[in-house]
């Protein structure tokens, strides 16, 4: 009881609040202040959303609707957009009881008011609105009728079908079109016969619409057969064929045979593809079994289906075709093997790789092939084969497939292998499949500063970039290694590739080296900083350029590096971060020339820059050195 009373009190309070609040909102809709109008719109939407939420008080909703209606009908001036907005509120939230009150608006002198009222009736639930729309349809002019026809279709009420069928028979092309579409949307089974009759007499441009309607409703075997063969476009024909296959598999077979027997049928590929999806198993088998002897065009569609369906039973057929294949067929065969192949496909694909080592399709197929025995073979060949070319080949295969144990084997080879070619090949393979232990191994190799340092640097940088997690690599491997290194000479090798681990911590380290004029590692640090792949390096260059004792060369280098960051699409960092960096660079620039040089990257603005630049560059308008130039940059027209 207590709960009930509290609920009543709360509802009453809410009602009073809403009732009290609505008047100023409605007043604001008439305001000359557009911001007030917008706020009023938002607030009214919120009030109505609350008033129509499940469990909300019906009386309150009714009162709100009446208030809105009163405003809409009010003859005193209200801006048209506000009036339309109020009708839209009714469209979104109006209850069945309000439908009748909308009807006078259908005759309003304003076209948009009339159409808004129609849309409101379209959306208001209940029989009232439906019947009023039917009446309005009868009374509407022929040019207005299509919109009312669509309104009835929108509601999905089958009681509209008889009236629509009557209009369908009018012969007026515009009305036939809109009525056919509406009947389709309504799934009007009773309308199939009149629709097909209209179809026979229709102008060519109306036919696709009636065909669409027939497909929407769902057609019988006869019509589906007819449209499969003679529909106005391949799209309609395929749509009809789908339904034919459901309604009459035998006739679908007939249609398919007829279409596939004609090489020049414009829809042949669609139907061949469809045959493999829709047809009975024997029919499908017949098509699939024709793979070896089919024309190339058909082979490609068949292979596509074999891949989609994962028909591994056809692996041997494909393997038979592979050796003598070329061009598009070979590509399709390789890709299909990658999706359905087994151990049996491994060696043929390895052969294909030897024939064409740069072929991406062969790489992808080899990478995806589920073949555990082949993995063991590859690992064993790399580890134990007495034949060097075989070991080199299978090292590349390991790099493509990355079976368990690859990284460990390759790490060991990088550390211990005596043969130069094999060791270099192991380094190459580690770039793709190396793990964190590989990073450690390569870091140690770089610090050794021996004949492999350069190769190891290249592999290490690429591997580190590929692995990501820059701060993690820095903390756990790079920094400890640098601290433990015996000399600056050894450290230099690693510092030169620190842009492979471009994190905050490694950048701090570089920054500290650069700040120390006496450091022997400063030149190496500057070289690495010039390659840094993110915007974060920018402030270090600003610091370098703005130092009192900066040399001309340093200033020029800083300017070049900053421009690289600001205009480089591959430099990580958001458009606004880069623009803000540009502002800082100009504000702390050592000379007016430096400022102009920095701003030269903004001759043309991309979309991201356009979005932020006016706000971010605003402070630069006060800089006498560049104010004119900045004004020019900001003088662009947004698309």
């Amino acid at each position: 009881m207590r709960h009930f009373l509290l609920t009543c009190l709360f509802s009453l309070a809410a009602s009073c609040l809403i009732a009290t609040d609505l008047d100023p909102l409605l007043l604001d809709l008439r305001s000359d202040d557009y911001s007030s109008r917008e706020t009023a719109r938002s607030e009214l939407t919120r009030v109505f959303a609350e008033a129509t939420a499940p469990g909300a008080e019906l009386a309150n909703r009714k009162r709100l609707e009446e208030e809105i209606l009163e405003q809409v009908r009010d003859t005193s001036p209200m801006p048209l957009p506000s009036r339309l907005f109020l009708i839209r509120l009714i469209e979104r939230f109006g209850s069945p009881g309000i439908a009748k009150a909308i009807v006078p608006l259908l005759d309003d002198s304003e076209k948009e008011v009339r159409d808004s009222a129609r849309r409101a009736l379209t959306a208001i639930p209940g029989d009232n609105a439906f019947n009023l729309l039917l009446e309005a349809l009868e009374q509407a002019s022929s040019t207005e009728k299509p919109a009312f026809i669509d309104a009835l279709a929108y509601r999905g009420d089958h009681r509209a079908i008889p009236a629509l069928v009557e209009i369908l028979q009018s012969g007026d092309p515009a009305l036939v079109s809109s009525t056919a579409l509406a009947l389709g949307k309504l799934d009007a089974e009773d309308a199939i016969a009149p629709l097909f009759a209209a179809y026979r007499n229709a102008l060519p441009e109306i036919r696709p619409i009636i065909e669409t309607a027939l497909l929407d409703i769902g057609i019988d075997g006869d019509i589906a057969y007819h449209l499969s063969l003679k529909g106005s476009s391949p799209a309609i024909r395929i749509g009809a064929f789908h339904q034919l296959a459901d309604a009459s598999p035998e006739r679908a077979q007939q249609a398919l045979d007829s279409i596939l027997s004609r090489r020049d049928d414009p829809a042949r590929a669609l139907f061949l593809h469809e045959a493999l999806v829709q047809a009975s198993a024997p029919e499908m088998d017949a098509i699939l079994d024709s793979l070896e002897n089919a024309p190339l065009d058909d082979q490609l569609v068949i292979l596509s289906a074999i891949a989609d369906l994962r028909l591994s039973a056809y692996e041997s057929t494909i393997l038979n075709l592979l050796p003598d294949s070329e061009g598009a067929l070979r590509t399709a065969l390789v890709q299909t093997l990658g999706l359905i192949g087994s151990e049996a496909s491994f060696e043929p694909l390895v052969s294909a790789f030897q024939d064409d080592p740069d072929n991406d399709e062969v790489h992808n197929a080899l990478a995806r092939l589920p073949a555990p025995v082949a993995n063991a073979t590859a690992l064993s060949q790399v580890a134990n084969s007495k034949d060097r070319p075989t070991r080199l080949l299978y090292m590349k295969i390991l790099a493509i497939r990355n079976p368990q144990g690859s990284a460990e084997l390759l790490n060991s080879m990088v550390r211990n292998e005596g043969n130069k070619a094999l060791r270099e090949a192991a380094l190459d393979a580690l770039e793709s499949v190396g793990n964190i232990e590989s990073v450690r191994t390569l870091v140690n190799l770089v610090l050794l500063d021996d004949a492999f340092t350069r190769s190891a640097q290249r592999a290490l940088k690429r591997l580190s970039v590929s692995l990501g997690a820059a701060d993690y690599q820095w903390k756990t491997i790079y920094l400890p290694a640098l601290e433990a290194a015996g000399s600056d000479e050894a450290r230099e090798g690693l510092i030169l590739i620190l842009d492979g681990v471009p994190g905050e911590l490694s950048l701090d380290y570089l920054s500290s080296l650069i700040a120390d004029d006496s450091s022997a590692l400063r030149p190496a640090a500057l070289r690495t900083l010039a390659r840094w792949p993110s915007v974060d390096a920018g402030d270090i260059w600003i610091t370098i350029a703005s130092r009192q004792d900066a040399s001309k060369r340093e200033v020029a280098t800083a300017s070049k590096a900053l421009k690289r960051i600001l205009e480089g699409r591959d430099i990580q960092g958001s458009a606004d971060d880069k623009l803000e960096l540009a502002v800082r660079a100009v504000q702390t620039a050592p000379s007016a020339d430096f400022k102009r040089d920095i701003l030269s990257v903004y001759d043309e603005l991309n979309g991201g820059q356009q979005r932020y630049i006016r706000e971010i560059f605003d402070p630069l308008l006060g800089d006498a050195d560049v104010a004119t130039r900045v004004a020019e940059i900001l003088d662009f027209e947004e698309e």
Partner: protein
Amino acid sequence: MQKPNYSRRDFIKQGAALGASLFAAPLVLRAETIGLNGRTGPNSRINLAFIGNGKIMGGHLSLAGHDWVQPRYICDVKANRLEAGKEELKERGFPDVIAAPDFEDIMADPSVDAVVIGTPDHWHAAIAIAAMRAGKDVYVEKPMTLTIAEGKVMAEAEKRYGSILQVGSQQRSDRTFRKAAEMVRNGWIGDIKEVYTRLGSFPPPKLEPEEPVPENFNYDKWLGPTPFEPYSANRVLGNYSGGWRCYWEYGSRKFGDWGAHHFDIIQWALGRDHTGPTRFVPAGYEGAEYLSYEYGDGIRVVRDHPDMNGHMIRFIGTEGEVFVSRNGELETNPPELAARPMGPSDGHLYQSDDHRQNWLEGIRSRRTTICPASVGHRTATICQLAAIASRLGRPIQWNPEIQAIIGDSEASRWLDRPRRAGYELPA
């Protein structure tokens, strides 16, 4: 030979989920054989039309330089954009491209094989459906549709007409997002419990005094199916920081802008491409700080949670986390996960490294794209349900199987919207 055991259902299931793109290499084939919905283009090229020459179309016009593509039409309701598009295509070596102010002319031309739709969102569905019905393949910008009802019709049209459709959710064709999704799918971070994603915010929609409609701008058609509002330059502006994207009438604000990208990746990573969440709770409801939605198994997605480590999406699992952003940014917790290469036992997702190329390949081979209408519809559904919950200020219960709002008939009215006279949905 042992005959395979298959069924149509298996095909649909697998076809929708399957991976590597077949026929990735250029093919030189007769157009009627390789698809093109039956039409033959000059020199077997794909005859393309670009519809809506706004900012987003700037990137798509590069298709004009593709060996497989023959640009045929540029279309826009703004005369200046139409001319700019024609000029750009001329500079790219195609002086004979037809400038069409009305997309209907393109639909009526049977020589056009495919269309790229870069209009504001409120026009996506009508143009795409008309194109598919006319037998043309479609690249449509994200979000695929503005209403859930439109999405259902588009997904049905794609299936019925055998259309090759690509939704412009191009993060699916980015290797970093794919890697993140594969990590999640392969269970590298255990069972997913929560996902955070950052969408940012737009300024509120702005009502402004009426301005004269620029000459040679068909503003009525620009408005199309949406309610009439007087013209103002800001309303029709196509920039990324405001303009039409701020108005619910033409877009789904940030839900349709960034949500269409990030919700899409979340769907993909969680393996929910053909289903969806079951409950949406708006920010502000019973003190909720952020909008969130939940899947039936309890996975919760939170919009704009601040704890994102600067990333766009954060997957939180029982055994770790994955953070992913554009520009190839991927981090994990524990960190060494990011450094773990995919192994042969890991499942691979559909691989596309170029979103537009994936569509062109699909046109030629009739293979499903990485983001067909059936998938784009489910992502757009999330954008729209999140928007409905936010606009109504109350939770929405959703049944993804029957695609219906449960227990709130008033909210169900927002699943579609009546269209202005003359701009009815063409199916």
